C-alpha cells in the first residue's frame, strides 16, 4: 500500500526490485506461464509424494504387472519390475528437485562468500582462490565426479550432494568476485570505509544487496544446470543410489533397446518431464536476467 501511494506521488520514479521483475513477467507471457507452472509442479510433486505415495510399496517388485501398458492398471503403465511409472516420476522428480535445490544453495552460499571475500580484499587470498578456480575450470569435472562417486564408500544422497557441490561452486564465485571488484571501488563503499565501518558489514550489508539481482539470476540458471547434471549422472548410473527413485534412472531403462523401442511409456514421460523442467527454469532465468539488466528489459 505504501509503495503504491508513493508511486502515485512520484509518478516519474523508476520501478525498483520486485516491481521490475513483476513487470518483466507480465510482459513476457511465456516466462509468466513457466514460472506459474514451475511453482505448481514443484509444490504438487512435494505434496503428492509426501501425502499419497508410500515409497516402499512403490518400489516393491510385482512381476504380474511387468511392462503393463498405460491405463491397464496404472495411469502411466509399469516398468520391468511392475512398478508404477507415474509414482516413480513423482518421487523421482521430488528427489531431483530436492537435490538440485540443495546443491544450488550450498554452492551459492559458498560461491558468494568466496567471491565477496576475494573481490573485496584482493591480495594473496584472492590469488589463492583464483588459482584454485582456474584449476577447477580446466579439469574434466564430469569424469572426476564419476570417479569420486565410485570411490566413496557407503555412498548416500548426502555424499552425492557433497561431491557435486565440490565441483560446482566455482562459477558463482568467479561471477561474484568480478562484480565485487568493481563495486568495491564505488564511492559508497569508500565512504563507508572512511567512517570506519567493519569490512564484513560493508561486504554483506553494503555490497551484497547491490549484487542480489545478479546472484538471483545466477542461482536460477545454476538450479537448471544442476537438475540437468543430476539427472544425467543418474542416467549414467553414477547419480543417486539405486534404491532411490530418480528421473535419470527412469530414463536409463531406455538403454535396453527393447524398452526403448516397445515400452516407450517407461522412459518417455520422465524424459519429457526433465525437458519441461529445464525449459521452464531456464526461461524464468532468462526473464530474470533481462529484468536485472535495464538495457534488455521488455517491460
Amino acid at each position, binding site marked *: 500500500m505504501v509503495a503504491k501511494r508513493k508511486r502515485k506521488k512520484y509518478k516519474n520514479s523508476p520501478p525498483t526490485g520486485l516491481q521490475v521483475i513483476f513487470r518483466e513477467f507480465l510482459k513476457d507471457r511465456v516466462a509468466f506461464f513457466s514460472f506459474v507452472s514451475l511453482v505448481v509442479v514443484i509444490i504438487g510433486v512435494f505434496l503428492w509424494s509426501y501425502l499419497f505415495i508410500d515409497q516402499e510399496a512403490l518400489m516393491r517388485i510385482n512381476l504380474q504387472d511387468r511392462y503393463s501398458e498405460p491405463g491397464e492398471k496404472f495411469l502411466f503403465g509399469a516398468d520391468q519390475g511392475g512398478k508404477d511409472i507415474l509414482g516413480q516420476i513423482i518421487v523421482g522428480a521430488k528427489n531431483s528437485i530436492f537435490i538440485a535445490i540443495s546443491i544450488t544453495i550450498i554452492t551459492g552460499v559458498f560461491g558468494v562468500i568466496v567471491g565477496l571475500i576475494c573481490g573485496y580484499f584482493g591480495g594473496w587470498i584472492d590469488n589463492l582462490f583464483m588459482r584454485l578456480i582456474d584449476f577447477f575450470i580446466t579439469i574434466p569435472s564430469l569424469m572426476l565426479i564419476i570417479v569420486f562417486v565410485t570411490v566413496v564408500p557407503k555412498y548416500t544422497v548426502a555424499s552425492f550432494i557433497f561431491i557435486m557441490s565440490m565441483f560446482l561452486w566455482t562459477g558463482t564465485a568467479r561471477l561474484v568476485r568480478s562484480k565485487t571488484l568493481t563495486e568495491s571501488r564505488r564511492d559508497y563503499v569508500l565512504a563507508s570505509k572512511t567512517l570506519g565501518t567493519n569490512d564484513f558489514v560493508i561486504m554483506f550489508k553494503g555490497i551484497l544487496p547491490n549484487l542480489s539481482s545478479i546472484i538471483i539470476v545466477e542461482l536460477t540458471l545454476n538450479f537448471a544446470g544442476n537438475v540437468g547434471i543430476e*539427472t*544425467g549422472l543418474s542416467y549414467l548410473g553414477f547419480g543417486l543410489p539405486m534404491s532411490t527413485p530418480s528421473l535419470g534412472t527412469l530414463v536409463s531403462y531406455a538403454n535396453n533397446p527393447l524398452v526403448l523401442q516397445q515400452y516407450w511409456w517407461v522412459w518417455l514421460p520422465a524424459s519429457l518431464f526433465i525437458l519441461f523442467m529445464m525449459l521452464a527454469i531456464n526461461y524464468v532465468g532468462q526473464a530474470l536476467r533481462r529484468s536485472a539488466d535495464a538495457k534488455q528489459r521488455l517491460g
Partner: protein
Amino acid sequence: MWKIIVRRFILMIPQLFVLSLLVFFLAKFMPGDPFTGLITPQTDPARLEELSEKAGLNDPWPVQYVRWIGNALQGEFGISYTFKRDVAELIGERALNTFWLSLLSVILLYTIAIPLGILAGRYHNSRLDKTIILYSFITYAIPTFVLSLLFLYLFGYKLEWFPTSGSVDIEYSSGTIQYYWSKLHHILLPTITYAILGTTGIIQFLRSEIIDAKAMDYVRTARSKGIPIKKVYTKHIFRNSLLPIAAFLGFTITGLLGGSIFIETIFGYPGMGQLFISSIASRDYSVITALVMLYGFLTLLGSLLSDIIMSIVDPRIRIE
C-alpha cells in the same frame, strides 16, 4: 607470439601436476589392484606378495607417484585387465574414433551456427530472429542425454534412417567404399546431435556481435561511401564479426569432450567416452587414470588453443 605460447605451456604444468596428484590418490582408493585380473584360486599368496613387491606397491607413495608419472610421461599406462591389452594402444584406437566424431561435429556445428547467427543479427527483432533465438534457447536448455535418446528413438528405431550402435558394420572389410560409407552412416546421428547441442554459444555471440557492428563508425562510413547494404554485410561486418568466433574453437573442443561421455554411451559409439564408462563399471583403473589425465590435458590444450587464436586474431589482448 612464440613467447606467449611457451609461457602458456609452462603455466599448464602446475595444473597438470595437481590433477595427476588427485588422480593418483583417487586410483589408490579404488578397490582392486593391477593384479586383480591375474589372480586365480591357485595363486599362491606369497607369489602375490612377491608380485606387488616387484611392482613396487609396497613402496611409500611419493616413490610410487614418481614412478607412475615417469611411466605416464613415456606413454606407459600399464595393462588394462579387462581388455588384457596395453592401455596406450587401447586408448589410441578409441581416440581415433572420438577424433573423427569431434571433427565432423565441429564442422557441422559451424556450418549450422554461422548462417543462423548472421541471419539473426542482420534481421534483428524480426520473426526470423525470434525463431532462431527460440531454437538456440531450446538447444541450450535440453540435456544432452534427453536429446540423444529422443533422436535415437525417432531416427534410429522408428524411422530407421540410421544404425543404432557401433562405428561400422562388421561385414565390410577395411578399405572398401562400403566400409567408409558404413562408417559415415554410423557417425552421422551422433554428429548431428552433438552439433545441434553446441550451436547456442556461437549463434548468440555472432548475433550480438553483428548487432553491435551495425552501429559502428566503419559501417556508417562504408554506407555513406555508397556501398550497397548487402556488400557491407558480406565484406565489412562479416569479417569483423567472424574473427572472434574462431576463438570459440578451443572451448568447443572442451565442450565436446565432456559431451562425448553421454553421446558415445547412448549411441554405442566405441570412443573414449564410452571406454571411460565401461572401465568405471569394470573398475579397470589403469584405463580410468590414463583417460582422466588425457581429458585433463586436452581440456587445457583447448583453452590454450582459444587463447592463441584469440591473440592472433586480436592483437590488443596479447598478454605481455
